[in-house]
């Protein structure tokens, strides 16, 4: 099991892993309240990347990563801009739905 120390490296490598094989890559997250620990794992059944933490600030970063994965998985691995801008960079569909964003 490869535990990665740097958060950014974990994010980059896991996104690369997903883009290389979106069919078999999965993202697992385990939280233990009693120990106060959080473990993240991204694997494509050939390679495995793990990240563990007990810091609240890492949890906030993890939320951003969750958003990235949700977007990648729901929309497809070709979505690049959403990684940079998060929810703001959207295509026409949500604008038509009228979420009330001030533009």
């Amino acid at each position, binding site marked *: 099991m490869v535990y990665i120390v740097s958060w950014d490296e974990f994010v980059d490598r896991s996104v690369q892993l997903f883009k290389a094989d979106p069919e078999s*890559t999965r*993202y697992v997250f*385990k939280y233990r309240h*009693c*120990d106060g620990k959080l473990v993240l794992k991204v694997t494509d059944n050939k390679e495995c990347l793990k990240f563990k933490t*007990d*810091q609240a*600030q890492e949890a906030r970063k993890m939320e951003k990563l969750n958003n990235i994965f949700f977007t990648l998985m*729901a929309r497809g691995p070709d979505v690049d801009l959403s990684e940079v801008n998060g929810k703001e960079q959207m295509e026409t569909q949500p604008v038509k739905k009228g979420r009330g964003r001030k533009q």
Partner: protein
Amino acid sequence: MVLLQLDPFLNELTSMFEKSKEKGSVWVTLKRSSLKSKLQKRKLSAAGESIEYRCLIRATDAKKTISTSVGAKDHQRFQASYATILKAHMTALKKRERKDRKKSTEADKKESTSSTTTKPKKL
């Protein structure tokens, strides 16, 4: 494996987190899937149609497992609710390391002393 709709899934996930506060873990798995068998996939790609992918989300607390699938339209809403649930429950994590705390308190002290000295200078 219980397949639920989005909102019941979120409710169940919340109760799982609450149950596991004293002991136990909560696992959440995210995976992309088209929810179709290989045969169906071949037929679709042969016919020239695009396969619609969904994001499969599974959650377990080692006693029971719940799952849901999120499409491209729902993922925004689900993402927001999911983030709220996580923030509300992951309260056991440490805020900062002790070394950082010491540094931050020292920095705060320095900032407070420097700010009091600069204010009269500006006036």
